């Protein structure tokens, strides 16, 4: 009898509970203290972001084969004077004449063929950027259609190729100088001079191991378009006869002049498309006039589409040669408005002070940074993050990255507009020597760039934050998401003590699957997000309307779609216990997955997105509960929630950011549309992020806030 009793007791309470494994216990502890953990982690994540300028390391040249600056420059004044003669010939042509462009091309081609290099023309039609919703996961060229546009607008690039005397011609280095053949511009002529000086030198040297391609890109339809179409034709040969025939007929009809001129030069200038080997690196050279500079400066632009960067070694080589050999001031773009923010300076002072105190305690601890350095670093970092997050290339070099070629744009601006020929020659000499040095370094490469970083943020031309460092801050920021999701999930699915019926029944309850209905809601809202992000494709086809009208149509259609969805899926049943917790848990999980994915695709977008979405998701709690609670804490939370959900709405966020940077003067509704249009026209993943992760999660957060629990 006693035995039976014992058995019953054993049946009622589990006889022994196995002690969970340490990792499980750790997980349980973390989940049960998720509030504390999330506050600590989020704060640490934000602090880590602001510490990044301090944690930046000095750049170093990782690839030994590069050996920058080890050879002395061979560029002489003869090259310069020859280049200046070319520039003079180009500028002396009457710009008003209709055929000035053709004449300039002819002059350039003449000079090039006099050097004994291969010269070719490349005709192209500027390719209109199109929205390809499916473009992102496919290869760079799959979404491309080669339909014949109108013949009215086309450009012609001039291409010169030096064959390396002792190489097999399997590799090449590309120099690009954008040049508008139709217009007379002294700075563009200067860039042609520099390019020609280097090119003429390279046509004579014996040490070339890679072919050199000089692309004088016709920039009348934009610098990017000409370079991109040349690259496309370089990498994707056209085999069908019809398309080339079409292009030719186009030229015949419209420009007999050019054709005649070409037939004259046929002996020297090849009519077919000329190719060299695979590209090891590319340099885009530009000269700009910027007023009020103290010395000659070199700006480096590196961001390509979707936040991709060229290998850091390329920037290092340029930076090393420019600073240590040619005495140019190198700079990368920075947010000037950050320099005006008081609190950044205060933060810099504080960090400086902490660094000093730490240094006095232990001289080994050298993490101090001077306040101006910190503020400059922050401004540069902010710009670096912003440019990468936009996902729009900052110059023609972006086209190269789509074909896995490392490329940067070098923008050289002289101190003053030189009138004195001697000073001008000296400027050309320095710039050309810089290019020569870089070409010589890249020429030494045995393999393509692979040693140094591809994933980094610049805080100054000689300082960078590598992926291993900036990921820590991001990881800290998003770490609370799975924890809070788990803890909410556990809370929502806790066995209800009141409904614990008689145990001796085979109760098949689908309690562990309760999250399915929440997942359904989340899925619906994300499907709506897809719908919203595809809408602009159709709206933009409406003829004769302004961006403002577009945005209003878009906004109203999206809201209408959301309303319809809400009416369809509205449940009339009483809200169940744990419903909003489940919904929040699923939302947070989705945000976590989305941010993780985005951090792989484009880190900067994920970082900026996390700064907004993580607090919005973590704080979201039905307002009804908070109002019922009526304590100081809940009022604070209401205030935070309302503020964040207001700012997190993409258009509002855009205008607030714009206002902070440029002042809240004139705001136009259409600006947001224009901005987004530029994003999707460049196939930026940020657009997809905003449409498919940010917006749906914002709607879900609102839904949780307004939940009637």
């Amino acid at each position, binding site marked *: 009898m006693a035995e039976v009793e014992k058995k019953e007791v054993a049946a009622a309470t589990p006889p022994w509970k196995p002690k969970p494994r340490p990792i499980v216990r750790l997980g349980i502890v973390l989940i049960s203290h998720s509030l504390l953990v999330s506050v600590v982690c989020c704060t640490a994540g934000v602090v880590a972001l602001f510490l990044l300028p301090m944690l930046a390391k000095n750049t170093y040249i990782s690839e030994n084969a590069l050996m920058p600056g080890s050879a002395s420059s061979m560029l002489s004044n003869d090259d310069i004077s020859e280049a200046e003669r070319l520039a003079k010939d180009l500028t002396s042509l009457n710009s008003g004449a209709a055929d000035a462009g053709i004449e300039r091309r002819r002059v350039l081609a003449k000079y090039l063929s006099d050097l004994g290099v291969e010269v070719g023309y490349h005709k192209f039609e500027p390719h209109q950027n199109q929205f390809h919703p499916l473009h*992102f996961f*496919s290869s760079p060229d799959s979404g491309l259609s080669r339909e014949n546009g109108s013949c009215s607008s086309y450009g012609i690039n001039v291409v010169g190729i030096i064959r390396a005397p002792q190489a097999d011609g399997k590799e090449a280095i590309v120099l690009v100088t954008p040049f508008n053949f139709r217009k007379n511009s002294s700075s563009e002529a200067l860039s042609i001079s520099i390019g020609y000086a280097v090119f003429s030198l390279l046509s004579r040297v014996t040490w070339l191991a890679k072919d050199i391609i000089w692309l004088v890109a016709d920039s009348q339809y934009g610098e990017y378009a000409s370079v991109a179409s040349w690259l496309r034709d370089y990498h994707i040969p056209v085999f069908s006869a019809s398309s080339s025939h079409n292009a030719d007929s186009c030229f015949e009809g419209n420009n007999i002049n050019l054709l005649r001129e070409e037939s004259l030069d046929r002996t020297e200038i090849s009519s077919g498309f000329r190719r060299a080997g695979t590209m090891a690196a590319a340099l885009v050279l530009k000269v700009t006039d910027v007023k009020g500079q103290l010395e000659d400066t070199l700006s480096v632009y590196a961001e390509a589409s979707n936040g991709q960067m060229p290998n850091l070694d390329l920037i290092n080589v340029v930076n090393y040669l420019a600073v240590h050999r040619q005495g140019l001031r190198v700079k990368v773009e920075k947010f000037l408005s950050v320099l005006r923010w008081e609190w950044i300076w205060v933060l810099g002072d504080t960090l400086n002070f902490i660094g000093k105190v730490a240094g006095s305690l232990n001289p080994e601890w050298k993490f101090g940074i001077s306040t101006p350095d910190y503020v400059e670093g922050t401004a540069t970092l902010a710009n670096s993050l912003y440019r990468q997050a936009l996902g729009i290339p900052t110059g023609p070099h972006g086209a190269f990255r789509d074909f896995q070629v490392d490329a940067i744009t070098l923008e050289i601006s002289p101190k003053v507009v030189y009138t004195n020929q001697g000073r001008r020659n000296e400027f050309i000499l320095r710039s050309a020597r810089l290019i020569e040095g870089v070409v010589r370094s890249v020429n030494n490469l045995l393999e393509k760039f692979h040693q140094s970083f591809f994933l980094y943020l610049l805080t100054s031309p000689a300082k960078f934050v590598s992926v291993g460092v900036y990921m820590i801050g991001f990881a800290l920021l998003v770490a609370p998401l799975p924890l809070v999701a788990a803890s909410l999930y556990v809370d929502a699915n806790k066995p209800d003590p009141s409904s614990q019926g008689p145990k001796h029944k*085979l109760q098949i309850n689908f309690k*562990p699957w309760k999250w399915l209905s929440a997942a359904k809601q989340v899925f*619906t809202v994300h499907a709506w997000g897809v719908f919203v992000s595809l809408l602009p494709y159709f709206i933009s086809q409406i003829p004769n309307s302004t961006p403002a009208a577009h945005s209003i149509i878009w906004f109203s259609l999206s809201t209408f779609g959301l309303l319809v969805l809400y009416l369809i899926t509205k449940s009339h049943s009483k809200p169940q216990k744990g419903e909003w917790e489940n919904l929040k848990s699923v939302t947070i*999980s989705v945000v976590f997955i989305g941010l993780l994915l985005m951090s792989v695709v484009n880190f900067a977008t994920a970082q900026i997105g996390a700064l907004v979405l993580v607090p919005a998701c973590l704080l979201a709690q039905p307002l009804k509960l908070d109002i019922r609670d009526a304590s100081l804490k809940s009022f604070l939370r209401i205030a935070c929630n309302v503020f964040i959900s207001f700012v997190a709405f993409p258009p509002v966020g855009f205008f607030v950011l714009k206002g902070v940077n440029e002042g809240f003067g004139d705001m136009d509704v259409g600006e947001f549309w224009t901005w987004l249009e530029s994003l999707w026209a460049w196939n930026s993943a940020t657009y997809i992020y905003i449409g498919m992760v940010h917006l749906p999660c914002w709607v879900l957060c609102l839904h949780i806030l307004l939940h009637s629990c």
Partner: protein
Amino acid sequence: MPTANTEEENSKSELQKNHGGGGGFTRWAVVAVIFRLALIYFPGNLNLSSRPEVSTPLTSIRRLAEGYWLKQSSMSPYAGSMYHGSPLLLSVLGPLTVKSLVFVLADLISSILIRATGRKLQIAYRKSLKSLNLLNKSTDSGALSSGDIAALVYLWNPFTIVACVGLSTSPVENLFTILTLYGAATGLAPLAAFGWVMATHLSLYPAILIIPVILLLGYGPDAPPSKLFRSKEHGKVGDGKSSQEIIFSWRRVFHLLVWTSLWSVYVLVLCSISVKQHGSLQEMFQRTYGFILTVEDLSPNIGVLWYFFAEVFDFFRDFFLIVFHSNILFMILPLAIRLKHRPCFLAFVYIAISSMLKSYPSVGDSALYLGLLGLFLDELADMQFSFFLFCGYVGVSLLSPVMHNLWIWRGTGNANFYYATAMAYACFQIVLVVESVSSMLNHDRKLTKLSTSKLQK
């Protein structure tokens, strides 16, 4: 606006899937077929058939086309190491111009078979519960049977859709595997034998399903542990011999073996006729089974073997091949002993394990076992980590293409990036298998507890 529309449909289906009754199945099956057709005839190129997640060297439609072309030009279809599938598939699918419709049809038939199998399993489950006096209202009230859910999960699983639209031959392979289970569950030995022979012929790994099929034919569909019935017999003294005695039906197993050998001979004869002109059966075995077992193709896929065999030194290769393949074999016996009373579930576990450890896995394999998982909804209702697994599957299946893009197209990542997702995927699969098996065993324990407590009353 095809994509937007289909997304809407998809969402709607997700919404109503859990509310629809038995009539809902037909509706949603039709919508699923339309959805597939819409995707197949989508004007833009989805590029699915070249994705490593979808098409493996064994299932790729391009390779099949190449093999067919070789055969047409009077060469061995296996020349040039392009095609590694069955010659029968070549004869059936090769001449068709609309191959995609075959795959849609295969998916549809598979889901109908899953539904029928589910019905069978549910009836058996009810019956065994009734015989244990455990059936009550709450279990009876389920509006949607697990078979319907399983079939709809199979049809609407993004993996299945992607495998079907990506024109890999895995829907056909899955169809034969499901046919085997259906035949075994309904006690049709010839059908089960045919399914098993064809499935083994097409992809080799279903060979291990012979054990669940024998158990299924011998013992009948899944039931609670047999000792439960025996103890119940002991409890009811004087009730006489009841019909609940579980007998292993050797007759059916014998039928199965006879039919298996018949079908094997038949398939081999067909194959030899088809390859006679340009090759031999030996070449066929070398190029299909040999290709699977020696892991010759090391192009990346979602499995874990390609990376390992790309790294391993050549003189260890044979050793590790044996180790990796015996991994699957090691698990067969213990699982068969532990789960012999639930042969269908055993088949699910085998399929899950083999799709995790096979040499060229694709999402089509995952689609199969995820669909079968739905069959055991009643038993697995208290499965742990379901939400975690769901998030993991969603995350990995999104991350994998991104990592591939980073590695192949952008060049900023490397093979490790992609392999990391493959490992994460394998981990989630392991968690799924472990959790489902343990919750199934827990369910058995619960039944035992309930039945003993009933007896003691």
